[in-house]
């Protein structure tokens, strides 16, 4: 196979962050390509249901309020310079999306309409029914088709490569359809490969969310930050853990325990069901643990919203409840529980998406950029507000694309040898050559997922975290004995599952390392052995550096505070 051209900017992942980054780099005149393991419209950005936040001045809203509520939601772990960028640029980015063709819901004047979302006092969430992510994703793909950008669809990345100066110079990947490897040379790589939900079982995340980008960057020397901050969404279905949008509560649905009490009154007297997600999930878990739930669930009550309203504004979850839980939302209570949903942490970046520090305060990987869930700017700190993740992808995807294009102009094309892909080819060859029957990747993944969901979930404590850490190490030791029956080159999804498991084990290890290190309770990280937030010692980020075969190296960075000093957090 001939080697692909050298690109200024090579984007990994074609969800919202990836496509936004590619389009913005393209507008800067850079040569751009996207490489993705699934077709762009299959990306997990699809799953974002409720909406996208922005404080529009002409609606009487203030970006400072949006920023403050984001900071408060983060339990003061977010970097406030990054949050200010997010809140200030949100309005313009949403207008740009509208101009591209997103069919945002309108008010009676024909302007963009809003709904309420958790952790925010004002209605500033713009939306398309309850499939906002899907509506945005398909429109960005339309833009991508119009721009005719090359997309390497269904390619799987096995490693990032560096030149001799340690600068990120491209990547090694194989085409899933043929199994053929290629070395991609690029002046910059933007990692926009999404989250790691499948590290947990269950999770709201799609099966493709296996933390590939985080693991790839981590192994190549970029630090992962605040990995212990894993969000449990308050409303997920029992069983497979499918998501029920926060918009349901935004539009007025209640949470009830088995006695029919709106229990959030005890935990968040002012905001009730619309307190931030960490607060609501903890409240639900306490209700369940103390016997006021039923079959491990509490209930979402949408009955008073009426059938027509549900069908119009929450049509997707109305159908989802019917199909996947056999519940009629207009007539019945829906059993729900907290479920793993989002990784606030990720590859450490600055506000331009760079995974290295131009002032040299922390060690990173020059030439690598990241955006979206795989990145950690940090906007979300200890807890992300609903409808801020779509915004994150759009604002920071655009910024990463722009900065990467500008940076690419200042450097020369990388010179790296084709031999760099031999190691990965050998890994695959030896994987295929393993004699079976050994262990199954799926069995190991399930063990990992259940371990994480048991010990590294809404409530955590040292002993549990340690035993989870040991279990993950044991699984890592068993990984070499995993075998696959499919020995072919074409669309070998069995082999991909083994590679993804390897990525996920690294992610799991990082999450546990972060959780053991942070000896306080903040945001989604609640330690039953350290009940309080400790601003004296822990107003800082935890950076983790990969050490092959050993536990990761730590580093710490102070939280960037601009105008909001930490306060007691009450909803």
């Amino acid at each position, binding site marked *: 196979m001939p080697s692909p051209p050298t690109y200024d900017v090579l984007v990994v992942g074609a969800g919202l962050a990836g496509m936004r980054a590619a389009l913005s780099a393209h507008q800067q005149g850079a040569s751009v390509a996207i490489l993705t393991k699934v077709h762009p419209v*299959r990306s997990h950005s699809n799953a974002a249901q409720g909406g996208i936040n922005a404080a529009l001045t002409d609606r009487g809203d203030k970006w400072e309020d949006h920023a403050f509520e984001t900071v408060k939601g983060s339990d003061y772990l977010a970097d406030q310079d990054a949050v200010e960028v997010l809140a200030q640029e949100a309005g313009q980015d949403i*207008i740009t999306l509208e101009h591209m063709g997103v069919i945002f819901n309108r008010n009676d004047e024909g302007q963009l309409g809003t709904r309420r979302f958790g952790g925010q006092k004002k209605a500033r969430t713009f939306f398309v029914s309850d499939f906002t992510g*899907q509506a945005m994703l398909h429109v960005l793909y339309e833009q991508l*088709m119009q721009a005719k950008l090359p997309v390497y669809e269904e390619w799987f990345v096995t490693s990032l490569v560096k030149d001799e100066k340690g600068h990120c110079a491209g990547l090694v990947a194989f085409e899933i359809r043929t199994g053929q490897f290629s070395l991609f040379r690029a002046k910059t790589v933007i990692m926009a490969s999404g989250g790691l939900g499948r590290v947990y079982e269950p999770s709201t995340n799609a099966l493709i969310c296996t933390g590939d980008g985080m693991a790839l960057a981590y192994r190549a020397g970029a630090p992962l930050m605040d990995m212990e901050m894993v969000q449990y969404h308050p409303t997920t279905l029992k069983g497979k853990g499918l*998501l029920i949008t926060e918009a349901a509560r935004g539009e007025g649905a209640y949470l009830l325990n088995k006695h029919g009490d709106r229990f959030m009154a005890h935990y968040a007297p002012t905001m009730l069901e619309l307190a931030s997600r960490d607060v609501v999930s903890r409240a639900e878990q306490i209700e369940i643990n103390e016997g006021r739930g039923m079959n491990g669930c509490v209930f979402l009550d949408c009955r008073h919203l009426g059938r027509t309203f549900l069908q119009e504004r929450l049509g997707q979850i109305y*159908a989802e409840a019917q199909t996947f839980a056999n519940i009629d939302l207009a007539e019945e209570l829906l059993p729900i529980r907290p479920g793993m949903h989002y990784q606030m942490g990720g590859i450490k970046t600055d506000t331009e998406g760079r995974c290295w520090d131009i002032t040299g305060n922390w060690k990173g990987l020059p030439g690598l950029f990241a955006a979206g869930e795989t990145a950690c700017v940090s906007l979300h700190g200890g807890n992300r507000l609903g409808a801020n993740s779509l915004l994150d992808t759009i604002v920071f995807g655009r910024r990463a694309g722009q900065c990467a294009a500008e940076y690419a102009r200042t450097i020369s094309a990388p010179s790296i040898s084709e031999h760099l892909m031999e190691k990965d080819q050998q890994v695959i060859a030896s994987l295929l050559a393993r004699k079976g029957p050994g262990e199954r990747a799926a069995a190991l993944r399930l063990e990992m997922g259940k371990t994480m969901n048991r010990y590294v979930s809404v409530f955590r404590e040292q002993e549990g975290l340690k035993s989870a850490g040991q279990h993950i190490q044991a699984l890592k030791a068993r990984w070499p004995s995993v075998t696959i029956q499919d020995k072919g080159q074409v669309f070998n999804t069995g082999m991909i599952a083994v590679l993804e498991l390897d990525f996920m084990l690294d992610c799991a290890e990082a999450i546990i390392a972060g959780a053991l290190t942070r000896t306080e309770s903040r945001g989604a990280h609640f330690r039953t052995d350290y009940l309080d937030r400790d601003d004296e010692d822990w107003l800082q980020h935890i950076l983790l550096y990969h050490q092959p075969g050993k536990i990761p190296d730590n580093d710490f960075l102070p939280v960037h505070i601009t105008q909001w000093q930490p306060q007691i957090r009450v909803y």
Partner: protein
Amino acid sequence: MQTTLRVRRYNPEDPEPKPFFEDYQLELDSSDSVLDGLIKVRETLDDSLTLRCSCRGAICGSCGMRINGHAALACKTKVVSIAASGETIEVEPMNNMPVIKDLVTDMAPFWEKIRQIQPWMRPAEPAPIAEYLAPPESMNHLAGVMSCIMCGVCVSDCTVLEVDNKFVGPAALAKAYRFVADPRDSTTTTRLEALNEPNGMWDCTRCMECIQVCPKGVGPMDRIMALRAKGLEEKVPSTCGSRHAEVFTDIIKHKGILDEPMLAIRTFGLKHVGRLLGMAPMVMQSVFKGKVPLSGPLHRPIASIQHIQRLFRRVRTKS
């Protein structure tokens, strides 16, 4: 419940590749979908079973396949809804597209057709500083068609595509409607003119299969009909497709029963006399079988023609 999944398999790397069925017996829960079953096979019995899947919740559009003869999303198809305990469920790759391996099809031709309709908004320039103003109902209406997840299920079961792979197909036409019906798009007429050409909106035979199988309630055929109505409304230059609809209506209005030879003659006209002559073998066969209906002045209106005409008047005043 005990279930057998009978999966049509195909491995291009086999020495002599050809499709075959393989049966997998497994115990499934009443809440399980066909996708859950296939994943269970892949994870516990045979990891070489190949399919695309991701979200498990009918939003990513990866797991389109034929289940008991009709295309569907495997994740949205509950096992109990199609089989009793002990019964067999037959699973095959989608139709009207090449198979790569097992249940994985090549979607490239699908996307080629989507690109054909120039699927991006072309608003009037210059753009306003704020958003384009649009009536709320227009956006709510578009939400119905934006719900399309491009899974390919309608294309798989399209009966026109089965005989003519040049037809642009239900998914692309539904996507086209999304722009035609968007008040912000400024190129409605250009779009309708393009769709008016052969292989476009007039090639649908209204079999309803796409409406039946669409997992998201998009109703592709309804969108195609809406496109046709818009085309006639906008008076895009008449083509065989639009004339067929107009002549059909005209004949019914005057005769109450179809005059098939006249329909063909007036639809094709002098301009397409070649296509008219192309029908000669069929006409000959009809003559041979004694099936040539009376035409022109010999084709008499039905007795109760005034009822038909009253219906026409009623519909006209209503619209």
